[in-house]
């Protein structure tokens, strides 16, 4: 067993995780204010927010395997922070699309959702994320009961591939980047399947 951290050390680690999640946003804001987002700043902003949302969703899925493999079960306490940050990035991604790109043209948004598969999938992923964000508090875990809460949060296994598909569909020619994210997702799922099998074998029937 690893040595327990003191309360201050624990807080310091926590602050580090929080800052790491916040850094891309701060960096984006800084570049925005100093006019360093390139010739098409609005596009850069929307894309960066989307990509960081997806990355954090994947980091959230890395936590459980990492905790098991590294035998550091307390890593799991970071999952909620990371998940909520992912939600924040995706929400800002959606808001900058609606607010800056479409300039609150909700008619156009609705048309996009119906007509453009990449928006349809993105929107679906976002809508599915909402209940996860809402039920992220301890209160909700107790209210729902562990098992039901856990089952609800399995939605993430649908949300992440929807996000990857959303990315894949908007790429014009070079599909490598979304495929890399998709491969990371599959690897993480592969580990889970492997782990489940192993456990099933270990528990006698």
């Amino acid at each position: 067993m690893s040595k327990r951290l003191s309360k201050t050390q624990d807080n310091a680690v926590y602050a580090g995780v929080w800052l790491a999640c916040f850094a891309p946003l701060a960096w984006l804001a800084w570049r925005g204010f100093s006019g360093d987002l390139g010739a098409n700043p609005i596009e850069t902003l929307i894309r960066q927010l989307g990509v960081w949302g997806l990355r954090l969703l994947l980091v959230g899925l890395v936590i459980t395997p990492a905790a098991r493999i590294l035998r550091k079960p307390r890593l799991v306490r970071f999952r909620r922070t990371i998940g909520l940050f992912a939600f924040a990035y995706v929400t800002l991604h959606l808001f900058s699309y609606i607010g800056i790109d479409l300039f609150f043209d909700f008619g156009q948004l609705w048309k996009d959702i119906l007509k453009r598969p990449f928006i349809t999938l993105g929107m679906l992923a976002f809508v599915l994320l909402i209940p996860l964000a809402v039920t992220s508090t301890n209160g909700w875990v107790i209210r729902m009961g562990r098992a039901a809460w856990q089952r609800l949060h399995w939605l993430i296994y649908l949300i992440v591939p929807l996000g990857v598909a959303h990315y894949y569909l908007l790429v014009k020619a070079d599909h490598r980047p979304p495929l890399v994210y998709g491969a990371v997702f599959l690897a993480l799922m592969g580990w889970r399947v492997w782990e489940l099998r192993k456990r099933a074998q270990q528990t006698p029937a």
Partner: protein
Amino acid sequence: MLIRHAPDLTDNDVTDPGVYLQRRTLMAGLAGLGLAGFAGQANAALTYTKGFSTTEKPTPRKDVTTYNNFYEFGVDKGDPAEKSDRFKPRPWTVRIDGACEAPRTVGIEDLIAGNKLEERIYRMRCVEGWSMVIPWVGFPLKDLLASVKPTSKAKYVAFETVRRPSEMPGQGWNTLDWPYVEGLRIDEAMHPLTLMAVGLYGDVLPNQNGAPLRLVVPWKYGFKGGKSIVRITLTEKPPATAWNKLAPREYGFYANVNPAVDHPRWSQATERRLGEFRRRETLPFNGYGEWVADLYRGMDLKRFY
């Protein structure tokens, strides 16, 4: 065909003779010092008159030269500016052949010296939904085509971009089927607005913008403008073009700017002019309908997109 009255044509006069002469003397001076080679390098000024232009404010040079789609150098907008320094646009020759009586191979310096260069400030609308206003320097493609005497079999024109994976890192991966080929119908190619550009903002074309020679067809989406062209072929059949081969439903052969025909994945009704906050309406034929709509009379532009 003559370009009739042009409402957005501002300054049809020749360049201020002072400027013109200065450039001439500068070039002559450099040549005299044995620095003629220098005059052919990036940022070397060209000598030109002012031609058909929009009055709209040109997009800053920095944006025009750092935000590019030129997949030969990579798929990110910044790649062409960042990853094109190994590319050698000189010496350069272009082969013009196919259905013509006098096929020829011509060097870039001869093309520049042998044609009357004009500055044309054109709108450029990308199929992705953004636009720029770009001061090109070049000459009408029709002058070049006339020089090889096209035969009656010449119905289309194919433009082939150079293939040099050692100098163009994006060609190391088959994002598109290299070499990049674009094409026009012969009447589109002979239209006086269709330009062969050799310069930008008064200087020789930078690598990232298609050096040393590129096509500019202002009423079509930007991808129709082949860059770093090594071969122009007159053909009887429409050439197979790069984007059309990749996704025929998304990128048609004509690719005329048309707000009424959406790309399957996004709307073409509006565009973001770089530097502007709100999107603006996209104009049919990118605002050049008055001069080019006749080319498509009677055609169903929803079908021939």
